[in-house]
């Protein structure tokens, strides 16, 4: 065995010239760089178009705070901005604990077998469900059967439905990426699997979990189809002094709430205001900047959280 190996090594001669190898490498590098360049170009073009079209409205204080107009020009999107963030926060408040629990159970507790396989298939199917289907399901169940009407609650639950599969998968992957020996170390110190999860695995997986939350939040923030039939298309004017049961109270979860993305859809499909092109462009720009702002905030919070938990 040993002697065969030596012979094989001895008879091997490199037949490719160094120049050919170099050209090869250069061409590959060039092609990859071109692909990346193309993607970046498309991205910059889209973002640039949106920002430039909506630039006038982006820094217009009355547009950012006023309520929309039905027929006149000069309406704003104040309630829509608030509704979008409120729905996002509510959705995350509902979906994050559930997803975290599900991911912890699937990675740490459930034995490999039929249960986990069914759960994995279900999660994958749910995550590829068209959002319009989620919206219509939400309308049937939350709006009609539960009798909650077009409301923030119905909308948040519908968004939760398609947010959970994404979050579960991301958190599952994040937890699986934590080296096994971290868990072993905790167990060998006489800690329970639950303590190992909460105090060792989740902190170690925090950066990846935060990234997952940001990605899912971006999707939720930009979602329109699932909300048209659940949170509704009307945005009552908001008044912080109104009682909590009033439709005008911003925090009332039983009021209908049009979001930025739904607003874009609505004014483009049935809007009659004379300045609808400008309003639409401005709303799109605000939507994009909001997502960017949320990303930055989430990353800062995530980093602070990680530093507190891991001393890194």
């Amino acid at each position, binding site marked *: 065995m040993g002697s065969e190996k030596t012979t094989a090594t001895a008879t091997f001669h490199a037949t490719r010239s160094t120049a050919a190898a170099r050209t090869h490498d250069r061409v590959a590098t060039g092609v990859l760089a071109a692909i990346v360049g193309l993607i970046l170009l498309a991205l910059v073009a889209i973002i640039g178009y949106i920002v430039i079209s909506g630039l006038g409205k982006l820094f217009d204080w009355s547009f950012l705070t006023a309520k929309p107009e039905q027929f006149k020009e000069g309406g704003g999107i104040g309630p829509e901005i608030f509704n979008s963030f409120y729905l996002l926060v509510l959705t995350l408040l509902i979906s994050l604990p559930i997803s975290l629990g599900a991911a912890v159970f699937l990675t740490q507790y459930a034995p490999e077998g039929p249960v986990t396989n069914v759960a994995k298939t279900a999660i994958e199917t749910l995550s590829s469900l068209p959002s319009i289907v989620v919206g219509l399901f939400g309308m049937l169940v939350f709006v009609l059967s539960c009798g909650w009407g077009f409301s923030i609650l119905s909308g948040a639950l519908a968004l939760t439905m398609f947010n959970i599969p994404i979050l579960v998968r991301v958190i599952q992957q994040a937890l699986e990426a934590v080296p096994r020996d971290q868990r072993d*170390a905790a167990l060998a110190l006489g800690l329970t699997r639950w303590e190992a999860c909460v105090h060792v695995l989740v902190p170690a997986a925090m950066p990846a979990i935060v990234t997952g939350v940001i990605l899912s939040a971006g999707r939720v923030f930009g979602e329109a189809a699932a909300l048209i039939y659940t949170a509704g298309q009307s945005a009552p004017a908001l008044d912080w002094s109104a009682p909590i049961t009033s439709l005008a109270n911003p925090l009332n979860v039983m009021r209908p709430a049009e979001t930025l993305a739904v607003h874009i859809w609505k004014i483009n499909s049935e809007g009659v205001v004379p300045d609808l092109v400008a309003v639409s462009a401005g709303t799109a720009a605000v939507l994009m900047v909001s997502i960017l702002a949320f990303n930055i905030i989430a990353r800062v919070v995530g980093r602070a959280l990680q530093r507190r938990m891991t001393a890194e």
Partner: protein
Amino acid sequence: MNDGATLLTQEVTVTYSGHKALHPTSLDFAPGTVSALIGPSGCGKSTFLRSINLMNREIPGCVIGGRVIWHGENVNVADADVYRLRTQIGMVFQQPNPFRKSIYENIAFALRRHGITNRSELDEQVERSLRAAAIWDEVKDKLKESAYALSGGQQQRLCIARTLALGPEVVLMDEPCSALDPIATFAIEDTIHDMASKGICVVIVTHNMEQAARVSDNTAYFLLGEMVEYGPTGQIFSAPKDQRLDDYLTGRFG
């Protein structure tokens, strides 16, 4: 072999999803002694070690058979209190695996979970265990820094300190020096001697026979999932009884 043994295994076996990984193994370990488990890779020595504190139970499909007698009582039972057992029988792993926490928290964390919440008591325990693992002087000024800022050898000693903090009577070590350089290795071996002199029973898996000869009082030789021979280290190395051990020592295989 050890009259004062507080830890015995009787006919301990391990199967992974029906596949036999360890044949019935009966060994005994006394306080204040160091026992080495040697043998070629895949011989079952680590598998045996991880049965003593029932860590194998955490692997899906893995079943531990036989009896692990700890202070006269079989702990390999369905409703065993593994949480208490593992504070008494600690474990150090092959790769240094400090938690992604500060040096201080690496030790204080488990103490706190086990009910010590008094700040000054925690401080005291952290210092005592870091001193016991001979790493206090190197880390005392950076207790709040991440454990990952330490070198591999320091990380491993931190892991030993973390185990010692719970006041174990037995420390199981699974090739604790295989990822370390010679200087770090000798530092760990000094700590092993210290632990034994304080009455702790140390069981160490090693693939390094010189290390076994340096640190241990007794040595067990494993081969193909079977415990072949167990005896005083001097006798194991100079006068092996079993031909298979003799072959291993003279380098005819393994």
